[in-house]
């Protein structure tokens, strides 16, 4: 398949490992991966912070970059950014009343996927041949869970990873408290939510907490580092890209 990677601005700038792992994994599975260089961001932060006009401009350039007949699928290592495209773009461009943009979004929506749902639901693969000899717990991020409904796709992928010990997280579906600018605008509430999430993670005894979103991992990981908790955060793509050879 010809797959265009949407690496997301967060992974591109702050966590390139998630993007690199996505490329390596998809290529290992025999797919042709491209990285349209003109891509930047999906506009979620602007929309969710109340700057709809800016978000529309960013969405317009996103659509321009990825609305390409040569691409079979757009894949991103993020549930949240994909949910922005699939859940929010249709309404956003409809309110703008741009019919050509609406048509392009309608073409793009059914071809845009978060990595784990793409592997399990589109490619029908659960065992990607990964090897990861660590104790891991999985945090289902809110947007992958409730907007994309990826369900147990990430867990199925993790269960098939050799040498990996998967430990269930208590109150797993509770939000970690990130929520974009929520983390600074309502810092006290966000911190209270993060504290509960970190407590649950530490209770698992895992070395690694994984998820499908770099942004949520940035929040959880930032908290765990500050506490010297001895648990690190690793994007799911990086676990799936790991092999015995590497």
């Amino acid at each position: 398949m010809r797959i265009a990677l949407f690496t997301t601005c967060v992974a591109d700038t702050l966590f390139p490992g998630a993007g690199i792992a996505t490329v390596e994994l998809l290529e290992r599975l025999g797919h042709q991966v491209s990285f349209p260089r003109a891509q930047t961001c999906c506009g979620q932060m602007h929309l969710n912070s109340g700057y709809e006009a800016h978000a529309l401009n960013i969405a317009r350039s996103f659509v321009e970059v990825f609305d390409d007949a040569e691409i079979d699928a757009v894949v991103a290592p993020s549930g949240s950014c994909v949910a922005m495209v699939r859940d929010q773009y249709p309404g956003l461009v409809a309110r703008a009343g741009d019919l050509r943009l609406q048509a392009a979004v309608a073409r793009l929506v059914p071809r845009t996927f978060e990595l784990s749902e793409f592997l399990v639901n589109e490619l029908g693969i659960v065992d990607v041949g990964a090897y990861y000899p660590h104790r891991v717990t999985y945090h289902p991020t809110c947007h992958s869970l409730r907007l994309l409904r990826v369900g147990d796709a990430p867990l199925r992928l993790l269960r098939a990873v050799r040498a990996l010990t998967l430990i269930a997280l208590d109150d797993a579906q509770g939000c970690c408290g990130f929520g974009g600018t929520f983390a600074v605008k309502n810092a006290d509430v966000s911190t209270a939510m993060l504290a509960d999430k970190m407590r649950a993670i530490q209770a698992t005894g895992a070395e690694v907490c994984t998820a499908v979103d770099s942004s949520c991992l940035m929040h959880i990981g930032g908290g765990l580092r500050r506490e010297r908790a001895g648990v690190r955060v690793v994007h799911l793509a990086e676990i799936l890209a790991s092999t015995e050879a590497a």
Partner: protein
Amino acid sequence: MRNEFAEAARHEVANSQLRANIRNATHTIRAKREEAVAEVPDWEQLREAGRRIKERTMRNLDRHLEQLERSVTAAGGVVHWATEAADANRIVGDLIVGAGAREAVKVKSLATDEIGLNRALAARGIEARETDLAELIVQLGEDRPSHILVPAIHRNRGEIRELFRRTLPGNEQLTDDPAELAEAARRFLREKFLSAKVGVSGANFAVAETGTICILESEGNGRMCTTLPEVLITVMGIEKVLPRFADLEVMLQLLPRSSTAERMNPYTSLWTGVTPEDGPREFHLVLLDGGRTKVLGDADGRAALHCIRCSACLNVCPVYERTGGHAYESTYPGPIGAILTPQLTGFTQGNSLPWASSLCGACYEVCPVKIDIPSILIHLRSRINREVDGYGGGGERLAMGLLARAFARPGRYERAQRFGRWLSRPLTREGWISRRLPGALGRWTDVRDLPAPSAETFREWWAQRR
């Protein structure tokens, strides 16, 4: 613009007793609701049916309200129209005075709390006595409700015992046994029920075709208020109307399971006008607009009016779980309050509330009439930024504008990445920043490390690789 919610929340999250009370209560009801809903094989179809009934009703609200007025009048009731809260308060006060009464017993009602009826009546020398147990606790403690359905959710029984010993005469020996506490309230309330000439209620639903008013409660005290007094006054928001009696079939399945996790509601009272020799001799229905028609004018925000006040969204909300209801400073706390309060008040109150959410989506998932609360929160953030006041202030507006410019052009974006890396390099250790940063970022670095822009971005890696 001040972030009133964040300021109030700072105080509430530090209250360990409150945190424990609310965490216990919400986690218990959450689990029960899930079980009660799982029993219904067609729950999703029921939700969709509920959503459609509400959407259709709102489309012709004027027509349904006029039909309701005709039906209530034909059944011997009197309909009053109130544009503003003050109008409704004046109408109710006049009716009580006209009945020659100085006091009234009340059914638990959000609409009358929204308009501040008790305060308005007190100013005219009329005592309005709350009879719902939790509302009574709130009223005796001169407290504020903190939950739509369980107004005293922030109190535990030890606190209630102290309150009753202090405020209800003859209870000096009271223990904190729930049955004893309920008995003390019962003895106090019975006298009120038997002596009150006027009862005041809200409405869960009002059926346009029959003129029937419907309330749901768990104690039976509401039924006392609606049957014993000679005069009954119901105050309802205009969005509570349902076109057909058959619509109750859907709503009476959705509401109890979503609110109290009950299969069937314990006390469901329906009445139509007045009936000779049975119940009140006079019935008045006060139809309250209170900003609702303006909400109806916003196509992207109006679904907030579909709410049937079940409070499921409060019980699953991770923000509400940490702050409780008082931080919202509104009759309507939690996710639904965050979209109702600013809209109902015409953006004069609660403008910080749409930001009081991490947009986790748990509220939308449980809403029995499928109100897409997260999308409305996002919509209101943009509206408030645009129409009222740049909520984040000039600094945020500037930063967002600059970022939007960077994101619009890949060249600018790449320069911004390099600039960010250069700027953060002196602070970066092992890829993270642990020092306290100035401004808004400081509220991140107070408690969390911040990832620094990577020494090699993904796109640099990609270019290198080709």
